[in-house]
Structure formats: C-alpha cells, structure tokens
C-alpha cells in the first residue's frame, strides 16, 4: 500500500515559489522547513505538514467536545483536552435570560457534563471561549469518550465524512468526533467502534484506508 512521505523537524522540504505556508512549516530564506515529525502534504498552492503527535491547540471555529470542569459566577469552565481551559459564558450557553442572583447555574450544565461546542474566540494570550449557540452544538448524554491524537481526527472523519459515515452505518452507533481529539460514542457496538478508531489512528497515513475499514466492518 502506498504511504505518504515522512518528514523530520528542520528538514528542507522545498523552495517556497510563492506558495502559502500551511500548518507545521516555516520559512528561512525562501526555503520551506518543517516544524514537526509528520506527514508531508504538498500541492501547487500550499505546503502542509501534519504532525504525528502533539496536543490540541484551539482555533476559532473548531467543533470540540468539552467536559464541564467548574461552575463559576458568570459561566462554566470547560476542559477541552488542551493546555488551555475554555470558558463558556452564560450568554453563549443558555438561550433564555438568567438571573445569576437567583438561579443555580449547575441547573443547565453541571460538573462532569459533556458538551459538543464551537470555539468562538481565542485571544493572543490564549483565553479560549466556547459557544453553544449553533445548530450542531448540544449537551451529550451518556455514551463513552475516547481520546485520540487531534491531528488524526480529520482522517477519522474522512473526505466529506466518508470514513465516519461507513463506521456509523455498519455498526449502528452514534459517533461525534471533536477536533480536539475527543470522540464521543453511543450505541451497542461501542467496543467494535473503539477498535476501528484505534486502527485508524495507528494507520492514518495509508492511502486507501477507507476501503480497508469498509472491508473490515463488512465481514
């Protein structure tokens, strides 16, 4: 099976030639160098290196799975599997008007609750705010959470959701992947799904993995 090229930090990948610098690369004297041990993705207008390991660093617009860590005066602190704790303000978390003086905020989200939210703001000094004001955001009840490398999540989803659709259809489970590396699974075939997810994580650089997974689940 064909594999993608592995690069190491400091390696000169190619000349820049006016291309856009993607993730995981930097420029020295018109040459593009890598920052990570990772897989190279080179196209005509962009050069990217996808790291094989590493922690999740939040970006605006990411759809992440968070676990409520604390209930505070004006919102909730949320663990998003990152070096930075996120904050969910009341206004972003609840639709209705809440009188902070009268209402106990743990009525809406309590410590340990799991939410699927969107990163709505990240400041320069990495103050992270999340929001529940989008159609897809919701509180997740029950289920199991699996942790994978954040850089492998796009592979789990596949092109246009192809990979995750196969897994959902063949196993009949609900799966929600968070871009921060937490994956929420609910259904009867949880152990089978975990097996498949760890296989994808291990062999994410193989081209044609979706077909392999399809075959594996088809048996």
């Amino acid at each position, binding site marked *: 099976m064909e*594999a993608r090229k592995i690069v190491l930090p400091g390696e000169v990948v190619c000349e820049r030639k006016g291309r856009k610098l993607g993730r995981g690369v930097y420029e*020295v004297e018109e040459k593009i160098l890598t*920052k990570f041990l990772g897989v190279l993705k080179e196209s005509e207008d962009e050069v990217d290196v996808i790291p094989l390991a590493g922690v999740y660093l939040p970006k605006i617009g990411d759809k992440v799975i968070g676990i409520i860590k604390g209930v505070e005066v004006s919102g909730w602190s949320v663990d998003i599997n990152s*070096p930075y704790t996120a904050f969910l303000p009341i206004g972003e978390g609840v639709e209705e008007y809440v009188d902070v003086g009268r209402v106990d905020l743990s009525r809406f989200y309590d410590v340990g609750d799991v939410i699927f939210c969107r990163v709505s703001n990240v400041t320069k000094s990495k103050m992270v705010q999340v929001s529940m004001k989008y159609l897809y955001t919701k509180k997740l009840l029950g289920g199991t959470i699996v942790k994978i490398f954040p850089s492998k999540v796009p592979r789990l989803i596949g092109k246009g959701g192809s990979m995750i659709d196969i897994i959902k259809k063949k196993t009949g489970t609900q799966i929600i992947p968070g871009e921060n590396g937490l994956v929420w699974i609910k259904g009867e075939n949880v152990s089978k799904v975990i097996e498949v997810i760890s296989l994808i994580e291990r062999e994410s*650089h193989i081209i044609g993995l979706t077909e392999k997974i399809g075959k594996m689940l088809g048996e």
Partner: protein
Amino acid sequence: MRKIEVELGVVTRANGSALVKFGDTVALAAVYGPAELHPAHLREYQTGILRCRYSLAPFSVEERKVPGFDRRSVELSKVIRVAIEPAIFLEEFPKAVVDVFVEILQADGSTRVTAINATNLALISAGIPMRDFVVACSVGKIDNCLVVDLNGIEDNFSQADINFAFMPNRNKITLFQGDGQLTKNEIKELISLAKKSCEKIYEVEKGVLSGKYSRQIS
C-alpha cells in the same frame, strides 16, 4: 566514537520519550506537555516555558550517589535547557509549560550531551514544534591529541573537555561549554571535529525516527 543506540517511546505514559546510549552512558528522557502551568504566577504571557530536570540515578555511578537534586544536577538541568530552548517554537503556546525529565541510568562520561540527545528525540516524538534537531557530542584533548566522545576515565584525565550542541540543518551552535587549556587553533579544530561527529549522530537519530514511523505505516 562509541556505539550509539536509540530507542523511542520507552515511557508510554509520557507524551514523548527516548532512551539514548553512548557506549556505557545511558540517558532516559520523558517529555510531558505542553500543559497548563501551575502555579499561575510562573506563567509567561508572551511565550511558553521549558522546564528540565536532570538527575543521576543512585546506581548509575561506581560509588552510590545520594539520590535527589544537588548543585551539579541544578547546573546540568540549566545547561540542557539553554541548549534545547533555541530550537523550540515556545511562542506557539503562551502560558503553557513543557516538562522534560532526564534520568541518567548509567554514567560513563559525557552524560550531559547524551541527555541533550535524548531530550531532543523525546521532544520530537512528543510533537513539539521545533526549528531543527539539537545534536550534541563531547570533544576534548588527551595527551595533546584531539578526541571525540570522551568516556568516564578519559574525562577525568583529559587536558580539556568541551560539550557541544549543534543544529545541523541551520548550522547553529546552541551549546559550547568546557574547561581546560586549548589554543585558538585547537578550539577551531575541535569545533569542526564536533560538527562532523554531530552530523554522524544526526544521521543515526534520523534513521531511528523515520524508521520507527515508516514501520508503523507498512
């Protein structure tokens, strides 16, 4: 030069780890993070910080060493940190910390350069953004002869010994520390000798890293 052996992922609980052997010198490095830094007053708002802890195991030397932190390990922890720091993009994770723990399991000279090599490999396998590899080796002078990679006895009876760390792709020196008596020409010669040996070590490390991850693919 002594035989170099490298093993990756030896501490499975850590984000990244490496075991490096230079002959009888064995260093084990484990990297945790980037993680939230506590206590909060240590946080830097413009950049992340790197913390290193070097420690010599009680059984690593001939006569039992008292376990724990002493003046020597405080110094060497700093030496490792300043040698590695220029290579890391610390500004990418402000307020966070990267913790490095280096344990010398067996000491037979050149422990700090072995530790730097182990730290570098552990950081790379932890997915920390780096400008380049940091490759280190020791050089020195024994009986008026310039040598590379000193072992314990050579270190004790040498006229001069120098620890050298180097970024091979960027051609930059990150550590040059030593003592003894050397002429200007000898220092020049030692630098070029050290660079050459670092290139050799770099090839070994590169082979191990890409070998391990290519094996994962196939």
